[in-house]
Structures are given as C-alpha cells and as structure tokens.
C-alpha cells in the first residue's frame, strides 16, 4: 500500500467518517492528496536546490579564501530566497528575434526533467513517492528530457553562442548516458531489480554491505558513474555547455529573470539527484547499520517514525557528502575541451564501464555471496576506502602545515580557521 493511498484513507475515515472502500468520493480525495503531494515534492525540489546553491557558494568562498554570502539571514542561509525573489522581480526578456514558443517553453522542460527524477528517489525506509518497478531506468529516461530542453533553449534563443551551448550539451548528455547506464547496470546485476527501493534493500547498513565495497569492479563502477553523472549534470570539468570563458554561458545566455532561475534550479537540483542516485545505488542508501528493513517495517507508532527519520537522515548525510564532493570538484578542476570530452567518454568511460559489467558478472558467477572469498573481498575494499580517506586527510594536513608558520609571520595571526567557524 503506498503512502498516498494510506493518507487518503486516513483522511476519509477521520474527517468524513466513511469507509473508503464504498464511499463514492474516494477518488476525489485521493486526487487531491496526489495534488498536494506533487506540490510538496515541487517545493521540496525548490527547497533542496536553494540551499544547495547557498552551500555551494559558501564552500566555493572558503576554497577561494573568501567568505561567501553571509548577509541575508543568519550566515546568509536565506541568500537563495533573496536571489529567487530578485530573479522573480526581474524583467522576463525575450529577444526580439527569438523563436518565441521554444524560448518560453525550454526552461520548463528542463525543470520537468529534473523534477520527475525526484519521484523515484528512495529517501527513507518507506519514503518514496513511487517505487516503480523500473525505477532506475525511469531515472535515466526522465533526465533525457533535459537534453531536449537545452537544445530548445539553444535554438530558441536565436543566438550563436546559445546554439553552441545547446548542441554541446546535447552531444555531451547523449554520450555520457552510455557509461552511466553501464555503471548502473553493475548495480542492477548485483541487486537483481530495477526498483530503487529494491536496490537499497539489496545492500546493508554497514559499509561492507554497500555495493561500492562489494568488489573492485563495483568500486571502479562507482567512480565511473560519478564521473559520468557530473558530465550529465553539466558540472565542471564537463561544464562545456555553459563555459563562460568560451561561449559566454551557452544555452542560457539570453535568459533572464524567472526563466533563467529555472535553469539554475535544474542545475542544482541535478547535483542533488546525481548525489542521491550514487548514494542509494552504491553507498547503501538509507540503510541503518545493524537493523534490517523488515524490522523497521514491523515497528509501530513513534518508534516507526523514529526509524524513518533516522533512515532519512542517513540518506541525506550520504547524499550531502557527495554534493559536497561535486562542489569541491567544481572549484578544483579546469574544463575539458569538446574533443577531449568525447574522448574521455568514448575511449575511457565507455570501455571501462563495459569492463566493469563483465567483471561484476564474472565475480557473480565465481564468488558466491557470503562465502569466504566474498568476505575477504569486501574487507579488502573497505580497507581500500579507508586508506583513500586517510591518505587524503594526511595530504590536507600537510598542505595546511606548509603555510602555517609563514602565514603567522606575515599576518601576525594564526592560519587555523575551521569550517564551522563562520565569520
């Protein structure tokens, strides 16, 4: 029974005191509930895209030795609202020579693609708008609407730069869908289902139960997927469609006001979506360590709510961590050239991701789950993951210490200024 029906029935029983099975207006109540749910989901997208934009700007600030927006609201958390209001109030310009219907429709199409993806994201143990049987395929399919939207924007603007951006982005998205699909295929092979909740359920709460640490091929597939997802999201180093130093913001060059905001909205929502997909497909999703999903389903009342909240939190933490990584990558790397972009995809990501599929298949056949070899493999992969974290922490520490003394001498102040200390 899905949550929407559940809520509708509850409403009918408690408010109208009728039996939902025989009451003639059941469908109406259900429709209204669906509408409200859709609105909530919409607001959710907005609420996520907004703070992600703020987080990105703050992190970018610190990475660049700046402070970042900190004026609107405490520490600037409401900056995105202010920007939204500003964009709303701005004039909605349509270039005189633009292809008007296409120009006007494009942002909504882009946004629909992003919004649709939220439907199948498994946020918590029982929290998913629609647990489709073909969930992960649906994710791949619905995001392809974005391509059409970008092409539409590029064409409709009737600007050569915008057309460059639109065509670049279409070529890029179509290409990178291949490696990302192959990488997700590895996950599907292990999980044996296309359903997003099914994929989460096939993993466990502890790191060694996650797909990423299942075997070396999955470990590699995670990074391949992540790379391809960054490319699909038009993020640095694959942000060619909006390369400001080459084609001056590309497909959104002619947009202003709310329509422009929709593109940005979609971009930030997309970061969140790709982080969420990576989190549920490879990093165990909302799984709580030490407790099985069935146990959660069996609980009642506040206990049930508590577990739900915990699972939700775990998922959000994982996804937010990945969002952070995406943001950090953006402020670290330069941009590829368009031929290099294609070479990266077709010469590197596609063959490698195919290789990962083969590898996962072979291991599925050779290494039975739960056997000794499987345990060793998982242990080794978790060790590798820990080693990566440890090495990077040490490198960060060393980089910091190199400058510390000189900085004190130059500025007369200590260099240490942790991220939680906000100006």
């Amino acid at each position: 029974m899905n949550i929407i029906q559940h809520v509708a029935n509850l409403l009918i029983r408690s408010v109208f005191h009728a039996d939902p099975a025989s009451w003639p207006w059941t469908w109406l109540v259900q429709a209204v509930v669906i509408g409200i749910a859709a609105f909530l989901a919409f607001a959710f997208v907005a609420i996520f895209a907004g703070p992600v934009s703020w987080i990105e700007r703050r992190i970018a600030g610190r990475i660049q030795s700046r402070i970042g927006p900190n004026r609107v609201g405490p520490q600037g958390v409401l900056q995105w609202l202010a920007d939204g209001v500003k964009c709303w109030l701005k004039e909605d310009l349509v270039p005189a020579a633009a292809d008007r219907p296409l120009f006007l429709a494009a942002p909504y199409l882009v946004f629909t693609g992003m919004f649709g993806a939220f439907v199948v994201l498994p946020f918590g143990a029982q929290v998913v708008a629609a647990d489709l049987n073909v969930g992960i395929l649906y994710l791949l399919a619905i995001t392809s609407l974005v391509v059409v939207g970008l092409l539409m924007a590029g064409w409709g603007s009737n600007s050569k730069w915008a057309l460059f951006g639109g065509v670049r982005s279409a070529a890029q998205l179509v290409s990178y869908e291949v490696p990302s699909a192959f990488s997700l295929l590895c996950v599907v092979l292990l999980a044996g289902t296309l359903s997003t909740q099914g994929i989460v359920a096939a993993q466990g709460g502890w790191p060694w139960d996650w797909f990423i640490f299942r075997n070396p091929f999955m470990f590699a597939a995670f990074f391949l997927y992540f790379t391809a997802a960054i490319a699909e999201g038009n993020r640095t180093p694959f942000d060619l469609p909006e390369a400001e130093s080459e084609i001056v913001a590309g497909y959104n060059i002619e947009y202003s006001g709310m329509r422009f905001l929709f593109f940005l909205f979609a971009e930030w929502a997309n970061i969140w979506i790709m982080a969420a997909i990576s989190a549920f497909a490879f990093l165990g999703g909302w799984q709580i360590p030490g407790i099985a999903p069935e146990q959660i389903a069996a609980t009642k009342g506040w206990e049930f709510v508590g577990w739900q909240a915990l699972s939700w939190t775990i998922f959000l933490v994982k996804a937010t961590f990945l969002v952070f990584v995406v943001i950090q990558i953006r402020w670290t790397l330069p941009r590829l050239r368009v031929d290099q972009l294609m070479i990266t995809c077709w010469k590197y990501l596609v063959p490698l991701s195919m290789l990962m599929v083969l590898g996962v298949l072979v291991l599925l056949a050779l290494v039975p789950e739960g056997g000794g070899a499987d345990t060793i493999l998982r242990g080794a992969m978790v060790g590798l993951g820990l080693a990566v974290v440890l090495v990077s922490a040490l490198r960060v520490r060393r980089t910091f210490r190199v400058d510390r003394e000189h900085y004190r001498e130059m500025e007369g102040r200590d260099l240490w200024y942790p991220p939680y200390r906000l100006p």
Partner: protein
Amino acid sequence: MTPAEIRERVSAACPGAVEEFQADLLDPVLRLRPDRLREVCRFLRDDPGLRLHYLRLVTGIDRPAAADSETPGGIDVVYHLWSYELRHGCQLRVRLDRANPVVETVSDLWPDANWYERECFDLLGVTFAGHPGLTRLLMPADWVGHPLRKDYARPERYHGLPTSRATVLAEGRAAEVAPAMHDTKAQPIEGYLRLNMGPHHPATHGVINFLLETDGEILKKATPDVGYLHRGIEKLAEQVGYVGTMPYTDRVDYLGAMFTNHGWALAVEKLLGVEVPRRAEFCRVIASELNRIASHLISTGSLAMDLGAFTPFLHWIRERETINDIMERICGARLTYNYLRFGGVSRDIDPETLDKIKHWIDHFEPMMDEFDRLISSNEIFVRRLAGVAVISPADAIAYGLVGPNLRASGVAWDTRRDEPYSIYPEFAFDVVTGRAVHGTLGDAYDRYDCRLREIKESLKILRQAMAAIPEGEARVKVPRPKPAANEVYARVEGPRGECGFYVVSDGTEKPYRARFRTGSFTAMTIIEHLSPGLMLADLVALIGSLDVIAPEIDR
C-alpha cells in the same frame, strides 16, 4: 656590429640607397631613399652577416615644414631592426612627401610589419604600397583625418558623440545611440559560421573583438579587431610634456605600470644624460620585480580561469593583493604606480616595507608549489595547453614576439641580461626558456610554464636586491626636462616582454614624438596566423597564454 659598420655593408651591397647617415643621434639612423627601401630591407634580413630577423618597430613622424624654413617638410617612417643571433641592430628611415606619403610595404619580409604599417596608415596617413589589407587599425573605419599629424584638428563630434568631456558635462549626457564604430560586417566566408567574439567577452581580457569564422567548433580564421581602448597616449605625450607623461605611461600597461614608468624614465634620462643614484636603482628593481610577479600572477591565474578553473585565479589574486599592499606603501597606489621620476624614484622604500616583502616571499615560495599541485600539474589543464598553438622559434622572431612568449619558443633573450639597463647585471638570475614540458616547444603550456618560472627568478632577484640595497638618496633633483633635439629608443624587460620607448625630442619641454612599443601589440598579430584549425576553446587558451592586455595594444 655597430650601425656604422652596418651602413658600410649596406652601401657596399646597395650603392646609392643610403641618403644620409645620422651618426650624431643617440641611436644612429640610416636614411634611405624610399624607392630602395625594400631592397635594403631584404638585404638586411637575408645577409648572413647581418641577419636582422626581428623588426622591432615601424612608426612614423610627421615633420611639417616650419613656416620660416625653406627645407620641405615630410613624413619620416622609421624602422628599428635587430638581430637576436648577432646582437646588433640598426634604424632605418625614409623621408616621404607629406602630401602623398607612399612607401612600399615590408609586411611580406617581417609579418609583424603588417599591423605596424596599418597603424602608421591609420594615425599618420602613410600609404604602404603592396600591403595586403591596409585599413585603419585603431581608429574607427570612417574616422576623418590622421591624428598624429601635427596639423590635425580634433573634430568636435563623431556621429553626434561629443569628443570632449566639457561638452558631455554641458549637455548632461552623451548621445543616445552610439554607432558601430568598427567594421564587423566584413564578408563572411561561405560555408562558415561568423561569430563576433568580443568586444565584451570573458576571454578577451579587455575590449578586443575577434571575428571568428568557424566550422562548428573548429576555427577557419580568427581576425583580431582592436582599437576599442585607443586613448591616444602618444598624442597626449606630445601635449603634456615629459613630466606629465609619466602617469599616462601607467595606463599603457595597467598590469605592468612599473615597467612603462621605467622605460619612459630611461628614455628621458638618456636624452638628458641624468645619472640615477644607486639606492634609486635598487628601489626601481625591487618595485619592478614585484610588479613583474604581480603581472605574471594575473596572467597565469587568468589563463587558468579561462580554462574553467576559477580557484587558482583567486588564489593568485590573493597573493597579488599582498603585492598591491606593498606597492601602496612604496608608491601610494595599487595599480597606476607613477613611481619613477627622472633621476630616481618618487619615494624611498622604508625598512618596514622591505621586511614585509621578505615575509611575503617566505610565504609565497611554498605557495608556488601548492599552485603547481592545484593546477599546473593537473591533467586536464596540461591537456588543454600542451601542443596547442605551437609557435616555432622562427615564427616567434618573425612576428616580433617578445618576453615570455619569445622565450617559450626557445629563444633565450632577456633584455635584462642581453641589453642590460639599470643594475640588473649585478644580479644572478636565469633566463628561462621553454622546455617542452608536456608537449611541443613553444606551445601554450610552455608559455604558461615560462611565466611561472620567471616568477621564481624574480624572487631570486628580489632577495638579492633586498640584501644588497645601499644607503643613500633615492632621488636627485632634476630640473624640468628640456632635452636637446635627439632621438632615443629605450627598452626594459616588462612582464609582456620588451617594453620600448622611442622618443624624439626637439629642444622643448614636450616630446616631439613618442612611440611606445609593447609586447601585446605584436602578440596580437600572430593570432590570425595561428588560429586556423584551432578549436574555439583553444583560441581562449591561446589568447590567455599570450598574455594579451588590451590597453597595451591600443595605447
């Protein structure tokens, strides 16, 4: 080989071509018959004993007949030649009829003459017969008159736009509609997409326009269109005098104002024969090298930004900010220094500032390694630059590239070492050249790499200079300059290469003609040559790696 010996050879090879040899000037000049110019030029370039492959400067001087003199007036066209291999040079000059100044082009002998001749045509009205595209370079295509002519009168209005500030203030506002001042509507090439990259484009580093003909992402041709920042500083120099020009030189190259200051001071000091106190020379070197670092920081940082990496740029801006603070202490301004004076510097550097510089260098040196880890060794960055827009050494010389751009192609020439000025011979430093780190010699990465290594050399010089700075006066009093009639070409090694100042004096307080030879001007001429076959994104990398500064082109 001295100019006199060169003159001997020219006379021997082309008898009768040299009309006059002006040996009494600071830089002796061979005056040629205009109809023999090409012949002599070809000889000078190709003769194995001369090998003057580098055309340093072509410019003109308008010399109208004085009212009381019987000598006919004319327009002089001046050619400065140099040989990197044999380390000698000479100056040629032809005197043209003022009413109909025509001379044959040398743009097929030295490709960088193309733009020099266009500028000469634009500002002085000299026609170069046989030039492939003699159109105005800096002024709008429909401008009337040639501003550097001595009898030029500025029009009050251009397309309804007032040309003086007083008129603008009086009318309350400028004209409503500005016309298209530059001809961007040249015939497009069939089958190619015409794109205007600029004048307002994030990658053009100032207001420059590139007319692109592209086949998708691949360029057929990129034609630079400059002049959007032309302020006529050379004309201003003729009006405000030697002293007053100093602050204007700040505006020639806003990232390397110390060098344009220095070049101007050197030129005028040469004309005056002024000795500069030692302490002042040290101040000049310290300030110059700091400025060089600051300029290279911007150059390398903005190249990274053009390639999409924003963070390295801001980190370099941060380091440059400290330099700016130091500069502010030294001379009172962060960008337009106006620090040098004839006979010294405007203000001594105090010990506290020297201390600050030392602390900053200590902090900055490890930062260079961090920067390398962040961006220079980044695989994407390397791939974006390595092998892109390769300039061969011969091309670099022929197109008149200077400074890091020239050295990146493997030509080890540094004015500080090879034509010494100030006290640079006292310091130990290396002339960095391209080393084909990741690709081909003379590619965009080499140019980037050269600049980064030059920063290290500048740090070396700074440390030595600060250790050896003597006590003493930082300025000698020089009376208001009034040099006798003479000519001089002074050059310094700026961050964008040779920064030359060709000054013609006539015994008054104002220069008769000043011509600033800048690195970006010639760097722009090579872009059209390099662009075919590049991708759009490579063009951005090329512009960034050449470190082109718009005001330096237009002046």
